[in-house]
């Protein structure tokens, strides 16, 4: 079987954009994001689903992109850290991690941000225990986790304040 024949055309929506790649169907979503789509924000840590560095959202669920053969992402909606925000327009979660010192070397950070984004979609008012559980699959070898938890708490406050002021407007009068 030649390489050309082995390749499949895979369509997926990445950060809101329709993308198509010709690739081996067993190629990891992680490698397609980084090598084919040049979205290098998603990092590889352990490569075996233990560390969460490669976390992305797929059809609204958090997944380890190192464990997803790209064929299984056919037609899926993928959100990576690049879709969360950028230097000009940071997402409140990114802002909170910056302000609270939730990032040091940075390798785990994109995964931490995506796991936090997933947690806050499912549960906008998490307890400390729920934050710890939501991020339990994301390992950091620099911070000792306290500043990461602090960052998530700050993000929760910021995002709920935004939502309250928005709702306050809608309910005004």
């Amino acid at each position: 079987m030649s390489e050309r024949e082995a390749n499949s055309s895979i369509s997926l929506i990445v950060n809101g954009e329709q993308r198509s790649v010709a690739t081996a169907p067993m190629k990891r979503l992680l490698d397609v994001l980084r090598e084919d789509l040049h979205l290098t924000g998603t990092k590889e840590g352990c490569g075996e689903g233990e560390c969460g560095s490669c976390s992305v959202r797929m059809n609204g669920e958090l997944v380890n992109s190192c464990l997803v053969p790209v064929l299984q992402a056919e037609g899926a909606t993928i959100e990576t850290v690049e879709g969360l925000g950028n230097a000009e327009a940071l997402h409140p979660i990114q802002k909170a991690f910056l302000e609270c010192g939730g990032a040091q070397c940075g390798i785990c950070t994109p995964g931490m941000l995506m796991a936090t984004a997933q947690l806050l979609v499912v549960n906008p008012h998490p307890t400390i225990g729920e934050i710890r559980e939501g991020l339990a699959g994301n390992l950091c070898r620099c911070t000792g986790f306290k500043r990461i938890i602090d960052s998530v708490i700050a993000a929760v406050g910021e995002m709920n304040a935004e939502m309250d002021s928005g709702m306050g407007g809608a309910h005004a009068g």
Partner: protein
Amino acid sequence: MRGNAEAHELIAPGSLGGVLELLAGAPGEWTPIAGGTEIMVAHAAGRLREKKLVSLWGLGELRFIESTVDSIAIGAGTTFRDLRAHAAVQADAPLLAKAATWIGSIANQSRATIGGNLVNGSPAADSSPALLVYDAEVELISVRGKRRIPYSGFHTGYKRNAMTPDELLYAVHVPLRFARHKQYLRKVGTRRAMAISKVALAGTALLNSGAVSEIRLAAASLAPFPARLCKTEAALVGRRVDSSTIREAQEALIDEAKPIDDIRSTAAYRTRVAANLLGEFLNELMPAEAHR
């Protein structure tokens, strides 16, 4: 990443019927892959031997939870995130809902399926002890039809099971006759999250005027596959639960357990901890006056 994606074929027939036809046409040639949380780890490490894989991910026909008055049917493609969030599973099969929260992380639970957990056949499988003490049945499917067998007879050896090469696991059926039973499940691992169990113990028991009228005990990581502890159960049936009964049951467990030494733990530690877990469960069953 040492694996080579081009060395493996992966196809997605898109329907359960299509997968079954493929398996029937070339028995043993195709390996099903569901959420990939085992197979992709082997792939990345370059030790995935299977060259031809067929994807089950996204098959709605395998992803369902149907609850009736006397049982819950769980499709093999149900993820642990589906399971832990399902109201009927939480209410009527609480040990299974609890086990689902232990599987790896949120990112693993959103991909790992109950079918994958059972077919993979790890001795440490998290969902197995709960299913064993609930007397679950598994339903297998092929182009020849469906058949149901007790889950306790599914595993036949280390990483071996009762399925023929053209069969898939279709569903798990959990009977709901344990509402009045005392129920117990505890896993001991290196840390609370993301740790494969060193040992896990589950139990369901019914007492009749202080004596054990019915008890089921099952363990992970005490044998080459998750299994009931039948000799330990036999040491308890008909007995009043007091400290000497507990001691004898623990001795039966120590005798019955056949754990191994491996990277996660030692046989001696596993046996000791399993006996302690049994003691914890049986203490919960003991009538208040027996504690004095």
